């Protein structure tokens, strides 16, 4: 009997069933009487191929809809659309070129941001359920209480009066039910007509199914919304037929339809088509699913964190999610699981059937050329309507671009972007405009104003002192003659292909660019992060402007992702080129043309840290001279700390406990140039205040409930705030210049006898200093009071 091995190629378990197999069959056929067995064998071959087809088909449908039909498509997906790409890994694998590099604690601890929201430690990702309630802005977030990588997810919670100064609260929700045992994931809040809050969130069940659950504040009278109750009938939504059990998450805020029902949308996918499912409800407990989708776009993959909201065509304020009408456009935004990019599109919403159509289908949601909130590191973003100030506010998760080992070492991972207002660009009507919330200006300390003209190929240091916490607002103008020469030069062709990523970064010189700032740079510019404009000739004889951030030389470290980010930015007739940059240690947020194009980057210098961080202005253009008119503010810390009773109505207390050891440790910091510190109690305070070195560096201090006795204290001339010192008798024994001081408010200082002022104190000018002592509720005695009530202090 012929053995089966003779019919089939010799297969061990490793041999692939490749196309060559069909070649081998004809060979073995030759050994047998062809006539008799040809039919038999071809029949067998056909059966075998048929069987192969069936089995392959079964195999692919068994997987959760993610497999490609063709291998070329999946190779494209592999080919590095994710930022943490092969690029970094393959570069590292050439060992000889890699310099040995190790992070140390000094470098790592510098990375922590001063005024961006981040938990005290561990991992954070998506923003959840942001809302304003009873005087507080609430922020919830995906949080891992156990590690600096994703996992064991719970809902973290924080509150703030102003979206900037956050107070940590206890965890809001944990996986304590079968329907969220494997994760309390992203969700959104909705305000009902009576002002009560419902929260819809995704739970990963004990069987790993993604479901939607309903939760609400346990005690609506608690402005801090500390405790949350989960609906006993959860889950309220399970994956519908045709939707994968793991492709159903991130429910949106609901909006009212014209029939009075509430409507929500949830992102998902069918094969490779990204979709947004739509449901109606009256009570948030039972839902009717529409047969149609809110929207879908082929080849975009899974849509996570879908957001859907109206924007006004005519006004620059935000709109409640339920607003609709002729003056309104609707935005759909989705986070693309494949590419880690948030895309949005503007279009028209049809309430009658719950569908949405984009204004420009060629840049529909999820298409690679579609608009983005941010062209850098920015994901899982979510907006909410701030009914307090009538704005729509955008939160965005900013992950790390470093190695997980560094995250583990430093003990934390991820920050949130500064909340931004979002409105439709009423001039272009084609894109949104974002801007950091106004309240961030409260962090501005001293500022420097500059007007500089820089010729082609120049780099100029900008002396602002410390350069790790900055707010920069700048206006640029290219000299008219240079512009005209370039513009009229027909030999210069329209540069259609220019993009930040492919242009070679900030060192690639063109006629009219790049020019801008280099932030987080060291003196020798061995590490630097340029944020810049690049102007080229575009289509139809128009100038085209691109806004970029180049992190490729931001650090000597070799285990960090260093992309070049950016995009085209519309510049309308008569507009100057403007940019704003927020620098906060390892995060840089850049905004061009008032927020038409935004770029957030994570940067991890090894040398340009602490006092060694510098700011530069540069013009790398070949032909153009550029004038830059700009202001740079030092930014204070937001002192984000755990909430305590003292936080109601009283200036916040920071978590720093100053003790004699702290002072020792601080004195060791050789390059300390700026120290921003909040002091919670007074042990060691005397020592701190009497250290000339520390006081020289101290930019701002906040005291709370301390027993400050000492009168021998020296203060930095630029200090702005010093309050709540019940024992304070005086501040300094002789008058101080206080060049930046404009107003003194005396609060709760019953013993204060005098202030270190004379006629030369205060900013120059006749205005003089305003001293407000009315806020001081009690005086030690009449004599003390007399010092202040009568303006006997002439300044």
């Amino acid at each position, binding site marked *: 009997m012929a053995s089966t091995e003779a019919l089939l190629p010799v297969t061990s378990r490793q041999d692939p*069933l490749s196309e060559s197999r069909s070649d081998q069959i004809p060979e073995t056929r030759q050994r047998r009487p062809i006539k008799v067995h040809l039919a038999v064998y071809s029949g067998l071959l056909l059966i075998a191929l048929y*069987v192969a087809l069936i089995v392959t088909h079964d195999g692919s449908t068994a997987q959760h809809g993610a497999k490609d039909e063709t291998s070329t498509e999946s190779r494209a997906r592999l080919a590095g659309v994710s930022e943490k790409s*092969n690029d970094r890994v393959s570069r590292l694998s050439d060992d000889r070129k890699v310099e040995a*590099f190790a992070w140390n604690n000094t470098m790592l601890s510098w990375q922590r941001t001063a005024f961006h929201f981040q938990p005290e430690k561990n991992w954070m990702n998506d923003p959840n359920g942001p809302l304003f309630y009873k005087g507080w802005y609430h922020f919830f977030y995906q949080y891992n209480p156990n590690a600096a990588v994703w996992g064991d997810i719970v809902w973290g919670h924080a509150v703030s009066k102003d979206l900037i100064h956050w107070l940590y609260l206890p965890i809001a929700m944990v996986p304590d039910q079968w329907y969220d045992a494997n994760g309390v994931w992203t969700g959104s809040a909705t305000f009902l007509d009576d002002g009560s809050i419902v929260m819809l969130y995704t739970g990963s069940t004990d069987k790993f199914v993604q479901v939607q659950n309903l939760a609400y504040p346990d005690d609506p009278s608690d402005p801090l919304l500390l405790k949350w109750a989960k609906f006993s009938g959860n889950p309220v939504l399970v994956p519908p037929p045709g939707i994968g059990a793991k492709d159903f998450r991130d429910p949106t805020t609901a909006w009212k339809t014209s029939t009075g029902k509430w409507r929500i949308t949830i992102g998902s996918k069918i094969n490779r088509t990204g979709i947004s499912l739509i449901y109606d409800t009256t009570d948030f407990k039972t839902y009717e699913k529409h047969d149609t989708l809110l929207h879908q776009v082929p080849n975009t*993959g899974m849509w996570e964190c879908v957001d859907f909201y109206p924007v006004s065509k005519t006004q620059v304020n935000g709109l409640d999610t339920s607003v609709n009408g002729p003056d309104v456009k609707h935005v759909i935004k989705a986070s693309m699981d494949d590419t880690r990019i948030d895309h949005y599109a503007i279009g028209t919403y049809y309430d009658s059937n719950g569908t949405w159509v984009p204004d420009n289908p060629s840049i529909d949601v999820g298409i690679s050329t579609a608009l983005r909130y941010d062209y850098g590191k920015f994901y899982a973003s979510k907006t909410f309507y701030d009914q307090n100030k009538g704005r729509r506010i955008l939160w965005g998760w900013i992950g790390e671009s470093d190695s*997980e080992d560094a995250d583990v070492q430093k003990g934390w991972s991820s920050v949130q972007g500064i909340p931004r207002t979002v409105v439709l660009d009423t001039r272009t009507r084609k894109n949104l405009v974002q801007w950091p919330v106004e309240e961030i200006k409260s962090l501005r300390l001293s500022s420097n104003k500059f007007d500089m003209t820089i010729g082609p190929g120049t780099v100029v240091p900008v002396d602002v002192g410390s350069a790790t916490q900055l707010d920069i607002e700048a206006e640029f103008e290219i000299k008219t003659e240079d512009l005209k020469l370039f513009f009229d030069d027909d030999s210069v062709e329209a540069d259609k292909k220019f993009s930040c990523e492919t242009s070679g970064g900030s060192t690639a010189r063109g006629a009219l660019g790049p020019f801008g700032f280099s932030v987080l740079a060291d003196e020798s510019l061995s590490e630097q992060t340029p944020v810049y404009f690049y102007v080229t000739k575009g289509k139809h004889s128009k100038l085209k402007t691109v806004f970029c951030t180049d992190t490729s030389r931001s650090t000597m470290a070799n285990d960090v992702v260093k992309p070049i980010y950016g995009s085209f930015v519309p510049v309308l007739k008569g507009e100057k080129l403007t940019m704003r940059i927020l620098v906060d240690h390892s995060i840089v947020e850049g905004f061009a043309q008032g927020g038409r194009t935004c770029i957030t980057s994570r940067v991890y210098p090894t040398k340009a840290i602490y006092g060694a961080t510098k700011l530069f202005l540069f013009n790398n253009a070949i032909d153009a001279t550029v004038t830059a008119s700009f202001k740079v503010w030092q930014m204070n810390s937001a002192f984000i700390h755990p909430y305590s009773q003292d936080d109601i109505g009283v200036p916040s207390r920071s978590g720093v406990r100053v003790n004699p050891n702290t002072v020792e440790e601080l004195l060791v910091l050789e390059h300390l140039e700026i120290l921003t510190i909040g002091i919670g109690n007074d042990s060691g305070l005397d020592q701190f205040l009497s250290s000339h070195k520390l006081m020289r560096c101290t930019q701002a201090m906040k005291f709370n409930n301390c027993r400050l006795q000492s009168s021998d204290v020296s203060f930095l001339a630029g200090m702005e705030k010093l309050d709540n010192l019940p024992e304070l008798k005086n501040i300094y024994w002789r008058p101080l210049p206080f060049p930046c001081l404009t107003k003194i408010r005396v609060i709760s200082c019953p013993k204060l006898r005098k202030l270190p002022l004379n006629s030369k104190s205060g900013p120059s000018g006749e205005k003089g200093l305003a001293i407000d002592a009315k806020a001081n509720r009690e005086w030690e005695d009449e004599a003390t009071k007399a010092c202040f009530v009568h303006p006997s202090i002439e300044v």
Partner: protein
Amino acid sequence: MMMMMMMKVMMMVTVMVSEGSIIEQTCKETPDFNLCVSLLNSDPRGSSADTSGLALILIDKIKVLTTKTLNEINGLYKKRPELKRALDECSRRYKTILNADVPEAIEAISKGVPKFGEDGVIDAGVEASVCEGGFKGRSPLTSLTKSMQKISNVTRAIVRMLL
């Protein structure tokens, strides 16, 4: 007689085709087909696993390789004391793979949020590369770190299929 033979052949064909098919289809779309197939075939769960299952098998292989490398590192302290600094860095990096990357990847893939699994898997390759780089071209761990990089690349390709 002929019928019997035909039946046997048909069954053989069916068995042969179905056994290799899912693994091989999957591995075809990774950067290292042979490595992929040999790793997956060497695990008894491989033949009946779906894509998630295959990814989890490979993450297990990463875990095993990490432990093996850590043992090797520990042994090298005595044999090559002059390499202490680089070995310390490697030890730390590989402990991150074991304690952070692997658990993150397992949880993410099991729960259907594969992008975090991709992060963990990519990072395993990065940590291995950095460890290797610390020896400035004269590494005693090259074959182990190169293995990690290769397995990381293959695993990542499979995890991306889940996105």
